[in-house]
């Protein structure tokens, strides 16, 4: 059984159809890159998988471990193992990062019928992960993402990914707003999380990110569909020739 199976997905925002019959199959252990020009529907796909309000699925289905993902609330999806690393992680003033991490982790564990972490176990786990990602302790005391730099925000997303141990990670434009050093740190964090049980969907406009997170499969999206799929060579071709060739194919 595939981990994620998207079949003939049609999605509307207000009165406009953004995705017109998208198919995608992702198995455990695989890393898929989804590339495409602005407005091709990449971020819409990630939002619909995570359950962001405001999108109307008019046709098709999304199965996650064989279950109907679209029937679940966003938090149920998270507990099942769907993790979206946001393109623009929000700032939540007044909610200390540490408190947030514990609340979220325990909510997920509780939903799965697992025991909640004890405070010392939790602290130990966070410290380990934070250290591996070079995240200073005082960052964890601050409000979630409040006053964080672009790189810090993305590292905070990776930290959560490591902590929550999801089976599907969707990285939405992880490279946007990052310089090369920040990108490398974040990508190293992501690569450390690659495992046979876990799949990743890397959404990006540029090939650059794929030098650091090397995909098994590359899909090109244009105008709400996957128009071409291939291996990592495809990304390099795109880098050379651009997206224009696909604009008409759609």
């Amino acid at each position, binding site marked *: 059984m595939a981990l994620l199976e998207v079949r003939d997905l049609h999605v509307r925002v207000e009165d406009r159809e953004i995705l017109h019959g998208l198919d995608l199959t992702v198995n455990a252990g695989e890393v898929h890159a989804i590339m495409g020009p602005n407005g091709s529907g990449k971020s819409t796909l990630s939002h619909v998988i995570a*359950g*962001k309000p405001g999108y109307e699925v008019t046709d098709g289905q999304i199965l996650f471990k064989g279950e109907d993902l679209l029937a679940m609330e966003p938090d149920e999806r998270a507990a099942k193992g769907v993790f979206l690393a946001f393109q623009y992680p929000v700032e939540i003033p007044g909610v200390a990062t540490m408190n947030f991490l514990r609340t979220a982790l325990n909510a997920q564990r509780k939903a799965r019928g697992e025991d909640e972490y004890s405070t010392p176990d939790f602290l130990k786990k966070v410290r380990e992960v934070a250290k591996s990602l070079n995240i200073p302790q005082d960052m964890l005391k601050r409000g979630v993402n409040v006053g964080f730099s672009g790189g810090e925000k993305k590292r905070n997303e990776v930290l959560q990914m490591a902590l929550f141990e999801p089976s599907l990670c969707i990285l939405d434009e992880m490279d946007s707003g990052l310089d090369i050093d920040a990108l490398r740190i974040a990508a190293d964090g992501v690569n450390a999380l690659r495992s046979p049980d876990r799949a990743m969907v890397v959404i990006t406009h540029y090939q650059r990110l794929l030098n650091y997170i090397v995909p098994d499969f590359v899909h090109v999206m244009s105008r709400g569909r996957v128009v071409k799929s291939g291996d990592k060579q495809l990304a390099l071709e795109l880098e050379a020739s651009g997206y224009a060739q696909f604009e008409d194919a759609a």
Partner: protein
Amino acid sequence: MNLVLAKTDTERAVSNVFATARDRLPGAGEVAEARRRAFEAYERAGLPHRRIEEWKYTDLRALMREVAPLAGRPDAAAITRAKAALELVAVDGAAKLVLVDGVFVPELSGIAELGAGISVRTLREILENGANDARSDLLLTSTTDAVISLNTAMVTDGVVISVADGTALSRPIQIVHVATASSASAFTRSHVKLGKAARATFIESFVAAEGASAYQANDAVILWVGDGAELSHLRVVADAADAVNISSGIVTVGAKAKLNLFNMTRGGAVSRYQVFITLAGEGSDLSVNGINLLKDKQHGDTTLVVDHAVPHCTSRENFRAVVDDRGHSVFQGRIIVRPDAQKTDGKMMTRALLLSDEAEADNKPELEIFADDVTCGHGATSGALDESLLFYLRARGLCEKDAQALLIQAFLGEAIEEIADESLREFVMAQAERWLEVRR
């Protein structure tokens, strides 16, 4: 504009309550005369209504359909019920001064726990037996506000506290108002005077005994913070769901003093806390904050006037309202800077969070500035919970209610963290969490 309007039914009822009660009210001679004058002053204005600017959003003529008669003296059963209710607003280590239905009850109070350097008497005792000048002073106020005039006319009891110069109280003083009688009213007034360089924590709480409903409270607190003194003042209004609570504070702050005041309203059908603070001595720090937690059809009004009468004072005001169902929150805050009050630094922030389509929030932050070398500002926002924050939290596994609760706590935290005293801060957070729990 002084409109001469015919009395409403409610107003006629108020007049009847006074006429019936006046012979039972403590104090004769000058005290009775002061009451009569105050009642006349009240009658000239009538119950505040929407065309009185200060009461624009809290129209008592519309909100107070019934006027309850003055509550009788609590009997032994009432005192037992009151005792049980004290737990609801218990603060660790506080020495309680308990007023049940507007009457001081010594057996529930712990005056002896307060130690040296503080004197506590009841208002009733002074009104009945005190020296002449002491008695009439207690009924003097500088305001012309109608509900304060009514309080002066009708007040039955309260406490008069004086903390000697240089005394630092080891435990908080807590006045607890307990209502046990239903459909009855209580008029109370307390005086708290902090001497020079004194330090104290003063809590005032309102709570209902089990079964008490539809009661009305009119309370006034007159506070002096002496030169160099420091006062933490917390108010917790946790009245019965159908109660009316109109409270007034008149505060004078001396030089180089610190006042940290916090008001929490999480009960009552109609609540208004109006506080008039005068910064009368240079170099003082004022921090006034509060939260309104409202649901059902509750109406909660916080009205604040900070009068910078002298130079070199700082004031900070931070208010938050969380309004659910058909609740209605009102915040009015005015910072006045008098012509001589140069180097004033005053900032006010008020924010309302509306959780339901029918919730309502009115904000009126005002600046009234007559001196030029000042830095003053205010901000106001209102709106719903941020959808993008909610989604982020839900995408991380929090259910909708939990995600909301976390954001609401953070929102309230911005005001609660202004409470200087850590144990009071935790007490208020716990009270707020209790409100959120019920909501869930």
